[in-house]
């Protein structure tokens, strides 16, 4: 339980800093910490394959892409214009107060729904599969073989799309 509280606190705090850090690069580093915290939660849930993939793909690959995007996009100043901290931004309604109020309301709704349902939800996890990699592979290649192929086509299309979008604009001709 202590490990869960610690991981949850680190994850939510760094997620909060993603929303509030004044510098874009700091927000990106806190995003990496959020991903690592979520990987820790997966470890806690004994989903070790997903935890490893989370670290490799999110904390590794997605973070690299985000940092490259920050470096390559010509930001005039890397600081958010309204970087006067959270309290200062609350004065502007559409970028401070309404989002915060809406999100707090949404969380309250989540909490009410979950706490009402809590007595019916299980309190202890199922016995963990002996080999979680084989467990996921069985699901992906048997039951969900078709969605798996669709996902691979989606990734290929996204990769080609990203290359076509960002290719150098100097030498025009296709």
């Amino acid at each position, binding site marked *: *339980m202590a*490990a869960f509280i610690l991981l*949850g606190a680190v*994850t*939510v705090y760094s*997620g909060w800093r*993603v*929303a509030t850090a004044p510098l*874009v690069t700091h*927000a*990106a580093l806190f*995003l990496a910490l959020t991903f690592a915290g*979520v990987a820790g939660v*997966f*470890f*806690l*849930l004994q*989903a070790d*394959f*997903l935890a490893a*993939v989370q670290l490799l*793909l*999110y904390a590794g690959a*997605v973070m690299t*892409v*985000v940092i*490259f995007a920050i470096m390559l*996009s*010509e*930001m*005039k100043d890397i600081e*958010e*214009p*309204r970087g006067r901290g959270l309290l200062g931004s609350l004065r502007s309604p559409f970028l401070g107060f309404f*989002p*915060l109020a*809406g*999100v*707090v309301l949404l*969380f309250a709704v*989540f909490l009410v729904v979950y706490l009402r349902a*809590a007595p019916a939800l*299980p*309190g*202890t*996890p*199922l016995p963990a599969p002996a080999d*979680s990699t084989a*467990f*996921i592979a069985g*699901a992906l290649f048997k*039951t969900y073989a078709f*969605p*798996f192929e669709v*996902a691979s086509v989606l*990734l290929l299309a*996204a990769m080609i799309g*990203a290359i076509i*979008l960002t290719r150098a*604009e100097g030498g025009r001709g296709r």
Partner: protein
Amino acid sequence: MIAAQGIPLVDFLVLGALLFCVGLFAALRRSNAIMILMGIEVMLNAVNINLVAFSRYLPQGADRGQAFAVFVLAVAAAEAAVGLALVIIVSRRRGAIEIEEISDMKG
């Protein structure tokens, strides 16, 4: 021993909801396109926490939850690639990635 033994399912759901709300707040509050994409990534991660927690606690969802978490990962990777490519090309053409300054679609 690190395991979820003494933790009820609802705790993971509350953590997922909290992280989702924080990510939504990041996406709504920021005016910088890269920051908005980062908020969306946090929201997708929160969804994954829920999926994996369901897969470990409910017998009906045993393999389903983790398989769908893998699909969410794939979609998030595709979204990051295309979204950030768009950010780079918009910043190259207009010199700005503040979404208020990108209000007309024809470039």
